[in-house]
């Protein structure tokens, strides 16, 4: 959804420039450590300096600036169904679901590891929700599949059960398999790779980045900093390090394949100095993301976040206000790709009902982003002339019926019933209503099936993955 309203900002243009210059200074002076000497040498050949003792690569400002110039201003991530194609031109805001290793059991409400059926249920619900534009889902091992091939089973299920796009992970060595599966389904991907703060690139990440970029998929660069732990405690300092880490990845990606679409990803949040845990649901996350959107617009790249998130361990008011406030700040600032839908339990679990609730939060944020339409027709001077005055009602005017759906967002599970009707419906809170809605979706929603040929190819890929992993294990 392109923004119509004025975007929210927290930094002046000068401050954005200062952060960029500071990140260039970090890249030039301190640089980034690479686990893989091959990747470091590759950058050395392209104008960076490499110290093979410290494994540090330093980046001259001119190299960074030249790499920024080859980043595309816009690109598309294609979906199986074109209505779910995602266009990244710097002005759009998309919402997706969260990625987590565990699930909140729909019956017992306990956190547990998922089986393939849980993954399938999640995908079915996400596929049906209008305000969730793409999907991430369960990432961990499945209780009913060999641990060596859990992620590939999850992805095969995504391609089978949803027409919406997904992202490809960097973990293990699944990138090449996921790319094959996406090709079978006729879908594009976003390759998720990150720097490990502070200022370290693992071989897994440089390898995956290379694979995704070479296959023509856009990639994420960036990091998840714990402010005060793996980065400076000051938000400005964190932004400097995060930008430096992203730019290092960007230079690498443009060296691998100029023109690769780039997202700056963050999973950055402060450390809670009382517990040492990460303050996932904090308001500072909101501030950091408004800044992220500003910095990315300045750099001419897309912004992507693994938020909104909460520290609450149940679906309660804290979940609602933390995720709601973060979502609104991120959306109004123009962050291009938000995840987080359905995430609960300090980002470690997915909940069916939270997906349904977040779909409403995302819908409200989308509406806020659309702003107020001002035209002759919406100014309604003629309508006011016809209706205005005591004992009159605009409800009877055709103008109302023509415009109300355009002007107002209708939440799916928020209560708007007055007392009597609410009591008649069982006096339920939003979590109970969302749970019922999730069950309804599972009963009624039929995701569009893949063609039989594609199904067979997916099954074939899964067999190949299994074979290759088990061989490796034996070796």
């Amino acid at each position, binding site marked *: 959804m392109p923004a119509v309203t004025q975007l929210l900002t927290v930094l002046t243009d000068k401050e954005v420039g200062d952060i960029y210059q500071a990140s260039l200074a970090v890249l030039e002076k301190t640089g980034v450590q690479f686990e893989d000497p091959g990747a470091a040498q590759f950058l050395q050949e392209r104008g960076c300096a490499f110290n093979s003792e410290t494994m540090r690569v330093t980046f001259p400002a001119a190299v960074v600036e030249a790499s920024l110039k080859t980043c595309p201003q816009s690109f598309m991530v294609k979906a199986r169904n074109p209505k779910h194609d995602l266009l990244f031109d710097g002005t759009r805001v998309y919402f997706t679901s969260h990625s987590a290793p565990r699930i909140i059991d729909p019956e017992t409400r306990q956190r547990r590891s998922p089986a393939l059926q849980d993954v399938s249920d999640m995908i079915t619900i996400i596929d049906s929700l209008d305000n969730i534009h793409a999907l991430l889902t369960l990432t961990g091992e499945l209780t009913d599949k060999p641990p060596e091939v859990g992620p590939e089973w999850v992805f095969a299920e995504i391609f089978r059960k949803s027409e919406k796009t997904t992202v490809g992970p960097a973990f293990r060595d699944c990138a090449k398999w996921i790319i094959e599966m996406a090709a079978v389904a006729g879908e594009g991907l976003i390759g998720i790779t990150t720097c490990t703060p502070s200022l370290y690139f693992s071989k897994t990440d440089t390898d995956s980045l290379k694979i995704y970029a070479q296959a023509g998929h856009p990639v994420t660069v960036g990091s998840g900093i714990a402010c005060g732990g793996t980065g400076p405690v000051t938000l400005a300092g964190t932004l400097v390090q995060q930008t430096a880490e992203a730019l290092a990845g960007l230079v690498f990606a443009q060296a691998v394949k100029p023109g690769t679409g780039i997202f700056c990803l963050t999973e950055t949040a402060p450390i809670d100095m009382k517990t040492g845990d990460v303050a996932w649901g904090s308001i500072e996350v909101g501030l950091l993301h408004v800044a992220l959107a500003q910095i990315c617009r300045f750099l001419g790249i897309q912004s992507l976040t693994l938020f909104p998130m909460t520290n609450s361990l149940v679906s309660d008011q804290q979940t609602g206000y933390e995720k709601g406030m973060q979502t609104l700040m991120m959306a109004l600032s123009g962050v291009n790709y938000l995840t987080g839908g359905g995430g609960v339990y300090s980002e470690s679990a997915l909940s069916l009902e939270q997906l349904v609730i977040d779909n409403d939060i995302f819908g409200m944020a989308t509406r806020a982003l659309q702003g107020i339409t001002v035209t002759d027709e919406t100014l309604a001077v003629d309508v006011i002339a016809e209706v205005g005055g*005591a*004992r009159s*009602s605009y*409800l*009877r005017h*055709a103008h*109302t*019926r023509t415009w*109300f*759906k355009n002007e107002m967002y209708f939440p799916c599970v928020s209560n708007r019933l*007055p*007392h*009597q*009707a609410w009591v*008649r419906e069982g006096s339920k809170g939003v979590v109970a209503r969302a749970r019922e809605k999730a069950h309804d979706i599972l009963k009624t929603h039929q995701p569009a099936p893949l063609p039989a040929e594609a199904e067979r190819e997916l099954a074939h890929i899964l067999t190949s993955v299994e074979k290759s992993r088990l061989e490796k294990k034996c070796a």
Partner: protein
Amino acid sequence: MEQMEIITGLEQSVLDCDTEGARQWAAKALEEKIDLMQAINLGLIKGIKAMGDAFGRGEAFLPDLILSSEAMKAASDMFEEALKASGAVWKATGGTLVIGTVKGDIHDIGKTLVATLFKAAGYTVIDLGVDVPKEKFVEAVVSHQPDILGISSLLTTSAGEQKAVIAALQERGLRAQVAIMIGGGAVTQAWADQIGADAYAGDAREAVEAGNMLMAARKERSH
């Protein structure tokens, strides 16, 4: 033109909230001299009932319902006039409701919603509007002979007017001939009991349910 085509046209105009279309189809119905009771029951009422059901399911919205009812009214006013001119008496199968918001209160939405859902349930509805003085309620009971009188008040300050309307009907000796239902934000079952209303409804859906129960009780008594 076929009778069925006209009836379907009327139904569709109501579903489409198309007041102009409803008028045109009504004119055709009069021109072709088709059975007006059928045009009303199988055309207009069928349309508004479908819209009311869609509203109940959350698929249609308040403006749809109200404009659909306006389209119905445009056609039914023309039919009523023709029936009157021919000396026939038209009475809908579901009974007659007179409804209004009391004097001192200009709240329209809840009352209009109740009126519309009654139409959707097959009632003939006479909507007196808002800020209606008690004398007007009394006159309407005399002239329309309704089965049910609905008196709405959103404001606490104007709820006393509901009591005054009932007292005025008693004074004129009309109280026994009409069932009285009250509703609105300021109103409770306790208040209904206190002022001697026959029914109280907390929202529009309950109002129609209560109306149907009042009708059933009246029919039983008249047998």
